């Protein structure tokens, strides 16, 4: 039994916005969970729930963005320490395209290396190029974000985050804005890269198939106020290293999707 602190732990967390105004509302409440630090293996947790159930709020609380530090009530711990603000140990991929418009792909990926003073300055281009190739953007490194498709921009966001080797990766509906073929390709890429970095990933999604394909654990939320209702782990199909389309053909995959759908509907009647 390891004595290492949990990767992420929420203790009785509640988040209320616009306190004391007519627009006051409770985004999440009674959040209690712990994600253990497994030896050489990060978990991929997908978060499902109706709009307004606080999925993004949880990511923002872990990231420690402005307005989320500290939570209204309770404690958000990352590796045993309360979150005090954003940092490079927690990478983030947003739904909106967040590549810096004034920087090329290469400079976008080098941004974190420079900001964190990671590696020798003369090696940073090589470090960045390795990840640019891994996400399949080799040859595009001198383009600006405006010259890229949506899928390519999300690859930049992945490479930019992964080059810093974060222990935690937060993905807020990263593929929602993409067309279906691109989305499937990005799901495949996410699994592939995730095996390489072994980070703990929290991924918010609206797609049950996506949640089942990617996850070690599926979390299902209910809304008003947002709360974590169900965790599904054992019923998920084993990871066979398949691409999403063929993975969905297996009967155990279909059963898992049915189960998750059933649970989703049960907690969100």
């Amino acid at each position, binding site marked *: 039994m390891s004595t290492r602190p949990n990767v992420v732990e929420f203790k009785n967390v509640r988040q209320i916005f616009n306190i004391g105004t007519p627009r006051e509302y409770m985004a999440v409440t009674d959040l209690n969970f712990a994600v253990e630090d497994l030896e050489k293996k990060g978990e991929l947790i997908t978060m499902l729930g109706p709009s307004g159930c606080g999925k993004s709020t949880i990511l923002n609380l872990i*990231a420690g963005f402005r307005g989320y530090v500290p939570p209204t009530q309770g404690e958000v711990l990352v590796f045993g320490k309360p979150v005090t603000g954003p940092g490079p140990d*927690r990478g983030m991929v947003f739904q909106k395209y967040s590549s*810096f418009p004034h920087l090329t792909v290469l400079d976008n990926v080098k*941004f974190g290396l420079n900001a964190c003073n990671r590696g020798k300055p003369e090696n940073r281009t090589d470090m960045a190029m390795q990840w640019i190739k891994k996400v399949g953007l080799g040859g595009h490194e001198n383009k600006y974000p*405006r010259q890229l498709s949506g899928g390519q921009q999300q690859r930049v966001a992945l490479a930019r985050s992964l080059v810093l080797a974060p222990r935690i990766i937060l993905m807020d509906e990263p593929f929602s804005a993409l067309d279906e073929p691109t989305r499937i390709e990005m799901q495949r890429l996410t699994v592939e890269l995730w095996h390489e970095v072994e980070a703990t990933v929290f991924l918010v999604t609206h797609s049950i198939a996506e949640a089942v394909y990617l996850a070690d654990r599926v979390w299902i939320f209910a809304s008003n106020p947002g709360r974590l209702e169900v965790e599904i782990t054992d019923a998920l199909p084993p990871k066979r290293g398949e691409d999403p389309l063929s993975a969905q053909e297996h009967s155990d995959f279909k059963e898992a999707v049915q189960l998750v759908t059933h649970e989703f509907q049960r907690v969100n009647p």
Partner: protein
Amino acid sequence: MALGLGAVYVLLILFAWWFVTRGAPEDRIVSPVLIPSPGEVMESIPALTKDSLRFPGGIQRHLGISLVRVLKSTTIAVILVVPLGLLMGAYGPIRAFFEPLNIIAGYLPLIIIVPLSFVWFAPLGGDWQKVLFLAIASFVYMLPLIVKAVDEVDEMFLNTAMTLGAKGPGLVLKVLFPIAAPDIYTAIRLSFGVAWTWILVAEGLAADPDTGGLGYVFNAAYRFDKVLMYVPAFIILAVGFVADRILERIGRALFPYRYL
């Protein structure tokens, strides 16, 4: 296409001008007292370009004086307003502290500042009076635009930068400023045009022929011989337009990624 239609419009205006002012002075649709004919305006050019007591060095020298003045004033204003606007956009308390400046910019008629600035800056001499007034005009014009440019940088970029390890001044210099820079530049470009129109007022008051400028030429013509007003007015218009086109080209060169 748009440019073609614009050219047609200009030609129509010129044609209408010629049409209503053609013929002998007493036969014209519009009396020469109100509007001179294109020919009369052309004939007024030598009186403006030759070196004279009223226009020492000719109008070309005064064009140069005005251009240098507006370049100086814009430079001074930019040096002051860009850092201030950036800080106001980035930091709430700094913004709250300087917010009254934006109220002044919104509601104070700048024309009031003209004589006041001449009083304040009198010890600095005539040229600085005008330059500093123009700098004030540019400053109050640019400040809200620059604050808005910084405001409109999506918070997502800041959040992203922080998850990549950026913090403090690095966020302002490496993220806020470069992302807002194209819009800040647009504010500077527009303010150049605004300052250029203000020379009519700045150089019209308390002017002497030696250090006049185009604003002086225009105002002196108004008092002396109204037909002389048209050429400086046209030059102000044309130079303003051409300068704006040039500044726009420079903007495209400075921020190529915006126009890909």
